[in-house]
């Protein structure tokens, strides 16, 4: 327990000190969005990477968390900090609901992906049509720049919050890799029948994973609301969130602790580069995402994170060749 804690402390401190070095708001925004993507990607990774239940509709959990955070503070005057915790709970609830439905009926693989996608779309259509979500007009959070209201005059405040959230998500992934629950989850991914025969309650394991994943996604949703102070059905439940959530770990490395961080960095950098080069032509980033995904899947199917081990192995082979 001790060694990984120390190993994690150093980079975490370095990241915490980042705002002191980055004096430009551009780069701080870049860091915030990267960590935010990493949080969303890690949420997907817990369920899709470790559990092998690949969702195509994480927007269902993200959006539910986002709407919960926005509506609870707008309509019930609940403190936004408390709203973030509640948003995690709503995300978890959405996850548990969808999980209970799809796992009970044994939906796996593409069927599970399609059902999650369908639910996200249904939620989007509902949010678009009922009055209390503000429908298509969206919801605006009033500007109150105080820490007590989870709004910071400086970007560094948001940075600290998203760094903490992403650190928790990363720690969860580490825990998964080193716990009985994680071993069961990976066993379920690899072979459900074998897992069952060895005493693992497959449905329960998957249900916990999707609940956890939903909670993290809900937190990401509430962070989004506080950072941008605006929400509409397309942002909350749109396909883009779902695609991003699965693209981040796929590019970085599925089922690894640090894959989502690496993937988030790559994706965000690509996004910035594309808007700098093309002046932000709408939809172009999605084209580039697709191109990057094809390249990664063709050349590095285990994600960017596997680049290190590949280079090391290549280096060893070269050394052997010389000897």
């Amino acid at each position, binding site marked *: 327990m001790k060694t990984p804690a120390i190993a994690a402390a150093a980079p975490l401190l370095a990241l915490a000190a980042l705002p002191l070095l980055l004096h430009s708001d551009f780069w701080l925004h870049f860091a915030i969005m990267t960590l935010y993507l990493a949080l969303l990607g890690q949420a997907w990774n817990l369920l899709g990477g470790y559990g092998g239940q690949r969702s195509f509709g994480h927007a269902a959990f993200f959006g539910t968390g986002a709407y919960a955070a926005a509506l609870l503070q707008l309509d019930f005057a609940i403190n936004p900090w408390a709203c973030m915790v509640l948003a995690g709970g709503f995300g978890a609830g959405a996850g548990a609901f969808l999980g209970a439905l799809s796992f009970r009926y044994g939906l796996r693989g593409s069927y599970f992906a399609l059902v999650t996608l369908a639910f996200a779309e249904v939620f989007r259509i509902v949010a678009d049509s009922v009055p209390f979500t503000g429908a298509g007009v969206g919801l605006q959070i009033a500007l109150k720049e105080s820490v007590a209201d989870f709004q910071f005059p400086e970007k560094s405040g948001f940075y600290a919050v998203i760094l903490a959230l992403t650190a928790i998500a990363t720690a969860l992934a580490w825990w998964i890799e080193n716990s*009985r629950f994680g071993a069961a989850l*990976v066993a379920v991914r*690899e*072979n459900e029948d074998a897992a069952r*025969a060895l*005493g*693992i*309650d497959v449905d329960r394991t998957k249900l916990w994973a999707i609940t956890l994943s939903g909670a993290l996604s809900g937190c990401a949703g509430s962070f989004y609301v506080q950072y941008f102070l605006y929400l509409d059905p397309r942002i909350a439940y749109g396909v883009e969130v779902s695609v991003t959530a699965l693209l981040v770990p796929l590019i970085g490395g599925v089922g690894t602790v640090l894959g989502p961080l690496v993937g988030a960095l790559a994706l965000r950098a690509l996004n910035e580069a594309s808007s700098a080069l093309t002046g932000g032509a709408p939809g172009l980033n999605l084209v580039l995402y697709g191109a990057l995904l094809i390249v990664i899947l063709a050349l590095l199917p285990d994600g960017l994170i596997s680049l290190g081990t590949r280079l090391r192995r290549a280096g060893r082979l070269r050394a052997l060749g010389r000897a």
Partner: protein
Amino acid sequence: MLEVAGVGKRFGGLTAVEDASLHVREGEIAALIGPNGAGKTTLFGIVAGFVAADRGSVRFAGEEILGLKPHVLARRGLVRTFQLVEPFAGLSVRENIAVGCQLRQPRRAAALAEAAAVAGRVGMSELIDRPVSALTIAGLKRLELARALATQPRLLLLDEVMAGLNPAEIAEMVPLIRAIREAGVTLLLTEHVMQAVISLAERVYVLNDGRIIAEGPPARIVADERVVEAYLGHGAAGRWPRRLGEGGAHA
């Protein structure tokens, strides 16, 4: 320890198991044999909770277990292996076995250490850190056994652990299974390989067309006319030499 009474199962129009009854005493090695399609695997599936029976009763350690889920049965100490091996394909041998260890061992590090000990029991110590994809079929069969053993079962159901092995590999597997029984585990195995059944089992049940047609010690079973006919066809018993118990017969 295990009492199966009047179990039946139909798949649509096909009767897989019809009115099958058998029992396994604590500490023995019992075998369930029968020609292809006799219903052995279905009956195994029913006992281990993987297949729902249409009727009958299965009692384990005195309690009715029909209808209980496989993971519940595994926790109670009734564990099966699979005829067609079902490894956790992306994991190492150690990680595979550790999944079994985790049933009784909550700590991950301890489970991984225990896995090494279990690997030693089935002669896999040297393969412990290999990926499963590097194993031969004999290795995979041992892995099935190791994972099941790792759960510390009281009754182990082995579904054709010898199928697909060559005679040398079978000769290695037989003492291994005996050692498991010596360690206090009761065993029920299905088997095609007659030689293995004769040298291992104390009692043999023969299943044919979903019914138990004979029961007894292996030497008597191989001489039983009904059994020979079930395997080789009607009338075969009359032309069959009477010295089958010598071993070497391959069903």
